[in-house]
Structures are given as structure tokens and as C-alpha cells.
């Protein structure tokens, strides 16, 4: 049996990576379990059809289709078994770095009101909308720490809506591309406040790694230069360098082990050779992402927790949310495409809050660079789906299209949920995640509003013709999955306390986007990182045990 350690962390993504580094550098012994592999920059194949976002020939960075099914229940109650490369699966990734290995890397701080949605907007019928138990001020030092330790470029000085920050971003923005130059003056003419998107991407050499070479293969691909910053090339190597942390890849956690009193003693997992292993630890940190973290808790059954660990009040797996992306594309009469990645560059926060009659909103930004296979699957509704006219449209407009898009902060609902499926099991015999529910109608209302604003911005910029893309009513989740182990002060309406510790158990923590009460009108990763720093800091402050050598 592996040696006892202070902490076992399940999942080496955004949350788990930070916790591993914080605990290991403080002298605690840590085992970091990851079900996927550790890829590197050398795994960048620049393959248009086999990457993490266009997975028609496979999801490159896990999990694999063969061993990892889920059950999806649609809005009519029809069940189907889905694979990671199916859209309904809500996949993020399974590898060291998690989603941060292949993401777009927008590095947003949530705004003050994003932590106080209920206080700001009041109750919304049919929603579990609530405030976070922590404020922006509680998070601010940890946002800063995430920005500087992992490395963020950008310039939000033009964003008059942003919450106060003590330090500027550590790197300047990448030089603006053509779309930025087109959209910026248009935004000013509309009285909006555009600025450079903060990105976990090196614009100058940083932390011993090079700057972005601005290629065409960005979101969904490994970064060939390792110029994009995730936990795989920052905090996890730092954790390993302390010698206090051991990373074990291709290890699938089955359940959290509990003693008679209901205290955790470690985890049971299958190693790379599918052998069942026990790792004992003083504390267990669950960082598997909103779907898999909830699944692990629900699959941890005990006399004291017959419906799953932390699930005494039936809140585990509830409030599954992501982002309802909304926006518009515009066709221009001149070339707008400069073939310079990452493409996304300019944003506005004018519509995150303060929209009449709406409980929130979202950021709008220009979209990431595209490949031809992306373009052909995203044509306007007036173009025939096949034939010469479609081909002519692609040829004429591939370089003349600009997209403005943004993540609507979702209004959470109790019935959008993750359960452990009663019948279907994965290749290891573990009950799989069962996803069901939909989106709140008000989320869709906000999306219609924000989509219209995207369209207006494009028209002002000179688009000859525009079209909208609005989200549907089906279940959200996906790469921005969050909410399933809500953080709160009341054990009756939340799963973990403000320190991210499960209310019911003294030594099990959930530290990932599962704890987000609401998910901001922004890409969530910087908040996941910052909250992991914050939770780690509180955990270490309260540490009373001995520090077991690694």
C-alpha cells in the first residue's frame, strides 16, 4: 500500500494543481491523482479534426471514448449513453492541467456583483440564485496571486466597470490585430468601453517560457511553445520541484474512504494497470471538475451518508451550470482576417450588470481565430447547407467575417444536475455521471439581450450583414461547468463551507468550479485558480496535524 501522506488530491486541473503547489510548498506531503495523462508542448499536432474542441476524430486530451461513458437525459426525459466526443457529454478534459492545458486562456476576475447576485437582483422565480459566502474583497489578493504566479497578459485599464485591483497585470497585452482595430473605434462611437482581454498567455517571456508566436492553432490545441499558461506548466511543476508532491497519472479514483465515525481516511483508485490501490491521507481534496467531483461524492456511500458524501441535504450535483454563450457574426466588405492568433483580443464589460429588467448579463469579446473546418460549420442561416452557393460563400467570406461573442452568467436551477447513474458503469465498474435538466428561461432572455448588443457593435463597425447565435433551453455545463457542490454558510442549502470544506466531514474539501455559487459573466478559470489559492491558504492556516514527510 502506498505510504500515508498529509493530503491526497483528486484531479490535476485548475483547482487541484494550485492546491498541490500550495500544500507542497508549505511542507505537507501530497499525492496528486490524475485520471488522464501528462501531455507536453510536443503533443501539439495542430490537427484540425482531432483536438480537444473539434473532436470528430477523437478528443485529444481525454477522457477516452472507450472507457468513460455518461448518461444524458434530454428535456423530454429521453436517456442516452454519450461519449466524451459527443456534444451532450459536457466534456472538459482529462489530463494534467485539465482544461487549462488546451483552453483559450481568458483570465477574468469576476466583478463585485458577481459574488452578490441575490443581494443585487433579489430572488428569481424558479432559481436557486444566491450570494457567494465570500466577497470580491476576500478574493482580490488571490486573484492577484494567480495572475502573477501563472502569468497573465492584457490591459484592463480601459475597463471602467472592473472591480478595484491593487497591482496591474504582470505582462502587457499582445499587439492588437485587425479585428481589434476594427472593433475598438466602433465601440467608442457607441459609448462603450473596450479594452485588451486579460489572458493566461505570455506576451513577453515569463517564468522561463517564451511568448506566444501567434499561430492559427490555439483553443483546443496544446501550445507548441508552452506560451499559454495552465497548471501543467506552472504550479504543478513547482509542486513537484519541492519533492513533497507525487503526481500519479492515469489513476481513476473510485471513492473516498471513510472510517466508522465518517471521517475520511483516503481514497481508493485504479492505477494505470487497473489495479485497485488505497492511498491514505489526513485530508482528501476533490478537484475533478463540476461533473466528476459531484459524481465522486455521490459514489462515496457510507452508513452516515447513505445518499453520498456531503449530500445530507440533497444538494450534491445540483445547480449544474456553465455559460450560455450568445453573440453575432458580421460579414464585411473588406478583409478582416489577419491570420494572427489567438484572435480574441478586445472586450467590453458594459453589459455585465445594470441591464434594465435583467438579472445580470455578460462580457462580450471578439472570438478566437478560426480554421476552415470551424468556419464551414458556423455559416449564417441564409446560406444553403450544401452546393456551389455554400462553397462560394466560404471562399468569399472566410477572411471577411468577425464574431462577437460572450458568456451569459446563468441563473442557476436546482434541477440541472449530476447524479450517479443507477445502471450504467464505466470501464472500472464505477457508476457514471447522469446529466439532466435545462436552463432557466431568464438566462435565455439575457442571452437575447446580449446577442443584440453584439450585433449592434458589429453593425457599427461596418458589417454589411449580421446574424445571431443564441443558446437553446437544454442543459448547460461543458468546459465552464460549475455549481454542483455549492459553497455556503447554511448546510441545508450548500455542500461546502466558505473554506471549501464539506459541511458534514472535517477533512474532505472540494476545490474546483463545483463550489461556485454563480459563475460570473466571464470565463471562470481565474476564479477557480484564485479560489483554490484562497481555500489552500485557509486550510494551511488551520493546519494542526503533523507534516508527514513525503
Amino acid at each position: 500500500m502506498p505510504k500515508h501522506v498529509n493530503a491526497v488530491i483528486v484531479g490535476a486541473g485548475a483547482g487541484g494543481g494550485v492546491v498541490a503547489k500550495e500544500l507542497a510548498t508549505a511542507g505537507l506531503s501530497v499525492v496528486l491523482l490524475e485520471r488522464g495523462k501528462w501531455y507536453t508542448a510536443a503533443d501539439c499536432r495542430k490537427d484540425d479534426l482531432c483536438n480537444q474542441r473539434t473532436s470528430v476524430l477523437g478528443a485529444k486530451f481525454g477522457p477516452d471514448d472507450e472507457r468513460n461513458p455518461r448518461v444524458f437525459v434530454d428535456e423530454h426525459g429521453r436517456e442516452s449513453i454519450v461519449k466524451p466526443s459527443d456534444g451532450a457529454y459536457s466534456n472538459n478534459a482529462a489530463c494534467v492541467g485539465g482544461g487549462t492545458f488546451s483552453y483559450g486562456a481568458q483570465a477574468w476576475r469576476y466583478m463585485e456583483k458577481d459574488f452578490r447576485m441575490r443581494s443585487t437582483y433579489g430572488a428569481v422565480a424558479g432559481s436557486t440564485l444566491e450570494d457567494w459566502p465570500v466577497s470580491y474583497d476576500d478574493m482580490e489578493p488571490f486573484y492577484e496571486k494567480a495572475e502573477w504566479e501563472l502569468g497573465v497578459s492584457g490591459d484592463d485599464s480601459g475597463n471602467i466597470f472592473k472591480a478595484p485591483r491593487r497591482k496591474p497585470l504582470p505582462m502587457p497585452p499582445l499587439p492588437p490585430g485587425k479585428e481589434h482595430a476594427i472593433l475598438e473605434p466602433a465601440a467608442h462611437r457607441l459609448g462603450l468601453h473596450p479594452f485588451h482581454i486579460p489572458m493566461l498567455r505570455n506576451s513577453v517571456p515569463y517564468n522561463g517560457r517564451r511568448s506566444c508566436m501567434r499561430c492559427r492553432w490555439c483553443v483546443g490545441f496544446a501550445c507548441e511553445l508552452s506560451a499559454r499558461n495552465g497548471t501543467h506548466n506552472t504550479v504543478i511543476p513547482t509542486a513537484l520541484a519541492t519533492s513533497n508532491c507525487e503526481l500519479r497519472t492515469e489513476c481513476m479514483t473510485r471513492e473516498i474512504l471513510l472510517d466508522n465515525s465518517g471521517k475520511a481516511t483516503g481514497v481508493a483508485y485504479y492505477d494505470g494497470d487497473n489495479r485497485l490501490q488505497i492511498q491514505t491521507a489526513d485530508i482528501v481534496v476533490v478537484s475533478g471538475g463540476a461533473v466528476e467531483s459531484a459524481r465522486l461524492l455521490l459514489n462515496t456511500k457510507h452508513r452516515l451518508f447513505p445518499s453520498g458524501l456531503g449530500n445530507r441535504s440533497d444538494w450534491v450535483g445540483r445547480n449544474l451550470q456553465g455559460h450560455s454563450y450568445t453573440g453575432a457574426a458580421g460579414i464585411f466588405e473588406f478583409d478582416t482576417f489577419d491570420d494572427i492568433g489567438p484572435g480574441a483580443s478586445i472586450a467590453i464589460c458594459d453589459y455585465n450588470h445594470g441591464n434594465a429588467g435583467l438579472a445580470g448579463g455578460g462580457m462580450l469579446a471578439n472570438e478566437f481565430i478560426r480554421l476552415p473546418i470551424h468556419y464551414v460549420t458556423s455559416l449564417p442561416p441564409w446560406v444553403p447547407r450544401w452546393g456551389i452557393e455554400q462553397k462560394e460563400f466560404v471562399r468569399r467570406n472566410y477572411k471577411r467575417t468577425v464574431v462577437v461573442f460572450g458568456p451569459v452568467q446563468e441563473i442557476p436551477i436546482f434541477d440541472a444536475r449530476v447524479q450517479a447513474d443507477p445502471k450504467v458503469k464505466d470501464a472500472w465498474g464505477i457508476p457514471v455521471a447522469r446529466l439532466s435538466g435545462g436552463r432557466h428561461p431568464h438566462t435565455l432572455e439575457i442571452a437575447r439581450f446580449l446577442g443584440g448588443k453584439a450585433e449592434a457593435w458589429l453593425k457599427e463597425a461596418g458589417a454589411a450583414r449580421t446574424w445571431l447565435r443564441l443558446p437553446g433551453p437544454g442543459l448547460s455545463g461543458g468546459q465552464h461547468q460549475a455549481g454542483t457542490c455549492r459553497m455556503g454558510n447554511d448546510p441545508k442549502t450548500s455542500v461546502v463551507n466558505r473554506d471549501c470544506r464539506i459541511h458534514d466531514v472535517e477533512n474532505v474539501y472540494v476545490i474546483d468550479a463545483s463550489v461556485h455559487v454563480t459563475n460570473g459573466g466571464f470565463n471562470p478559470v481565474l476564479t477557480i485558480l484564485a479560489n483554490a489559492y484562497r481555500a489552500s491558504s485557509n486550510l494551511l492556516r488551520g493546519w494542526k496535524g503533523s507534516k508527514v514527510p513525503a
Partner: protein
Amino acid sequence: MPSACTGSWWEPEVRRRTFLEAGASVAVAGSLAGCAARGAAGQWRFFTASEARAVDAVCENLIPADRDPGAKSAGVVQYIDIQLAKAFRKHRQAYRLGIAHIDSMSRERFGAGFADLAAAQQTDILRTLEQNSRPFFQLILSHTWQGFYGDPRHGGNRNRASWKMVGLDYPPLRGRQHYEGA
């Protein structure tokens, strides 16, 4: 249907579950027993020579040649055939039944297999297919896009035909220069 829940305009909602049902939705009774014979030249991994001819003709209708190459000269049918032996194994039945359906519909209506019909007759058949066998039509359309616009390493987009068509350099020189100079 659920959305793919991606945060990107460029990865729209994909109804992949429908694809899984595509085989069952084609209203054709046919025996699947045994592997189909390979083409005379043995160049096909999955298709028979006659199936390959039919698929080639379908794909060329979906992306026809004009002043730039179409699906046929870009090798889309090669892409689909290669993938049916790998990533698309689950779609084998859909193709076998779907092609048989297209050919029998063609014979019924115009007295010849799809590949031998006149252009207007092929369009007519495909319009019917799009209406009545939507899952299979969507499947072959998606695969045609992939084989035409996707990475040439997978057997389609021969000579980077579509990338040249939209004016994309390869390799992307800007990035390479930066990389080599860094």
C-alpha cells in the same frame, strides 16, 4: 437536443447523437451479413468500388468543383473510407444502408445508380434524401466538410485545396518566423 455547451462560436451545437441513430433511420431493409468485396484495385478499406463511386458522386454534389477543386479531386471519399476503418467504425452500417438507399431510390426514380445520373437528377435525389433521411444526410455532409476543409493528414483536402481556396498560407509563416527567431 442539448447544446455542445462550448464557449466558442466555431464549435456550434453538434447533434452527434443523431448520427448514432443514422443507420437505423434509413428506411431500407438490407442484409449486412459478410464484408463487402473490395474494389478491383483493392484501394478501398471499407467501401466496395461501386459504393465508393456513389459516395464520391454524393460528395461532389455537396461541394462541387468550380474554379477551385471540389470534393472529388480533394479526395473526400478517401477521407471517409479511411475513417470508416478507424474513427468512424460506428458509422459503417449507416453508410452501407444509406448508400444502398440512395442507389435504390435513384434506380426507382431514374432507372440508374446515383453515380450514373445526370446532374439535375442527382440534385433531385439529394433533396429527397435531405428531407426524408436527415440523419444520414447530415452525417455524410459533416464528413464531406471534414474531408474537404480538414487537415490533409487524414486523407482528404488533397493538396490543401480548400486552404488555398480561402487563401491560407501553409505553414503559417508568421508563427514560424517568430518561433525560429525566438
